[in-house]
């Protein structure tokens, strides 16, 4: 069996696993589910994960434009990680990116391909301030 087939089976199985015979796990994290997967299967993979997400919180990390093309801003949440002069900014996608996706100007995958998928700077700054406040309170 190929790696791609194993992952194509393993990813939905992991997302739909049960704690006991009735209860779904609360959270499943999957790193780069697109690895070794045929790009054309990205839609089917996301469909199965969305089905799993009705009972389980599913957290994905991905570098795949094909997978991101399936992103639906109305039902999915997305955090963007972006390398910036030696540091990594993580935050919700900036309002321009979200608006471009919602207006069908670009898909999330197309924005990633042209390096225009950016984290919201204001949200990143608020996070930094929050982290700084927390450190100050602890010290």
């Amino acid at each position, binding site marked *: 069996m190929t790696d791609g087939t194993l992952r194509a089976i393993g990813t939905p199985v992991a997302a739909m696993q049960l704690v006991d015979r009735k209860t779904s796990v609360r959270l499943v994290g999957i790193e780069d589910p697109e690895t070794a997967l045929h790009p054309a299967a990205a839609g089917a993979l996301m469909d199965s994960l969305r089905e799993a997400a009705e009972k389980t919180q599913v957290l994905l990390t991905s570098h795949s434009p094909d997978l991101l093309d399936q992103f639906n801003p109305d039902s999915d949440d997305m955090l963007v990680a972006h390398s910036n002069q030696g540091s990594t900014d993580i935050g919700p996608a900036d309002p321009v990116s979200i608006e471009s996706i919602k207006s069908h*100007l670009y898909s999330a995958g197309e924005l990633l391909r042209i390096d225009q998928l950016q984290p919201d700077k204001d949200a990143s700054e608020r996070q930094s301030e929050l982290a700084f406040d927390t450190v100050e309170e602890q010290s």
Partner: protein
Amino acid sequence: MSRLKVATIVEGHGEVSSVPILLERLWYELIGGEYIEVVRPPIRQPRDKLAKNKDDALVDAVNLAAAKLGATDDTHAIILVLIDTNSDQACKLAPQMLEWAQYGRRDKDVACVLATIWEAHGHRGNRSLRRC
């Protein structure tokens, strides 16, 4: 127009890092402008898509650039499209690209610049320029 905000559309990976620096140096060191903000990173699209507006690539890129410029109040805002001339005629392609770029975006200033490599001898321009 001493305050300027620029969103750029380029064709190459090299331009993504170099064009913002070049614009800042031109603005501060050559023009002596007060303030410039270059939206980073530039929007990069393959030259063929931009030069032919294939699948409305140029129109879409300009719309995205306009969204990134946003409301600019007292700062002059402009969208700069910069590609190499290559074998095209700059005098024909630039106005055509400008027409595509301004399609539906009359609210923003747009400039299309086609860069030409001059021959090493310096006195003879690119063949495409001579035909203009």
